[in-house]
């Protein structure tokens, strides 16, 4: 009887010991898997970031340039409006030729502003597509949207620069007359 009890005890010890060992090894394997999965994700995210970062950096720079150009255009516009007030005060001294020259310059400005209006909303549309691409972790689509945004921004920079040049010319014309 004693022998039987001893045998049962030793068997139970052996079984629990092996079970504990088996548990440890599976846990280690699981941890390893998780680790590799995290590393893969980090690597993928790193790749995606390295591909996308130059584009987002360019967008940021363009955005700053557009903001600066818009501010410059507003300042010159205010100056022109002040000169227009002065011109109105002495309108009788203005000749028809001078008025038509000024009107021509304003028309050139208007044409350039219309070009700008034609592309209004394009960035908004691309941002919607960009959000969708990010949600789906679709780097290629995100890159396409970012590049399109850069193209729109570049066109805007050109348009606003032309507007500023025309505004400066108009201001000079007014100053010449008054």
């Amino acid at each position, binding site marked *: 009887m004693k022998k039987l009890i001893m045998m049962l005890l030793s068997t139970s010890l052996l079984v629990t010991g092996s079970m504990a060992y088996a548990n440890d090894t599976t846990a280690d394997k699981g941890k390893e898997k998780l680790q590799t999965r995290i590393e893969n994700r980090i690597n993928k995210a790193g790749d995606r*970031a390295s591909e996308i970062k130059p584009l987002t950096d360019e967008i940021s720079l363009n955005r700053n340039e557009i903001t600066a150009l*818009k501010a410059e*255009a507003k300042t010159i516009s205010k100056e022109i409006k002040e000169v227009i007030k002065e*011109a*109105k005060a002495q309108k*009788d001294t203005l000749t028809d030729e001078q008025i038509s020259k000024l*009107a021509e310059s304003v028309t050139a400005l*208007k044409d350039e502003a219309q070009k700008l209006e034609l592309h209004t909303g394009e960035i908004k549309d691309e*941002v919607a597509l960009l959000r969708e691409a990010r949600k789906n972790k679709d780097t290629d689509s995100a890159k396409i949207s970012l590049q399109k945004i850069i193209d729109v921004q570049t066109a805007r920079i050109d348009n606003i620069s032309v507007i500023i040049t025309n505004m400066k010319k108009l201001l000079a014309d007014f100053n010449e007359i008054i």
Partner: protein
Amino acid sequence: MKKHIILIAAMVILLSAVGCREVKTEYNPAANDGSLRNEKESTEAAQKTEPSQTKSDNAKTEPEAVLKESKTQTEDKVSAVIISKSDNKLSSEEKEKALDDMSKELDRIIESLNNLDDIEDEDLEF
């Protein structure tokens, strides 16, 4: 007899004086240059005003034509200059309206600039 000689001598002096004055005005280089310059200026002015004159085929140019016929060539050039300076068809109100329109157009351009869509910072984070 003496009276006759004095009279003739006086006439000769008078006539020669008049003759000398005419010669002086004809060959005075300064005066000549000046008149040439004036003529050039007036010719240039007339040339400059020619296009505006051809453009404006309306009632306002009719008195100008009448003036041209009635005066000499030099006078015509002078009158052309004067007319070109006063060739304003726009009334004060029209000029003011044109200037107002320019101001409004500038406002519209600034509005277009303000309405431009942009990308937010959060959309640039990946």
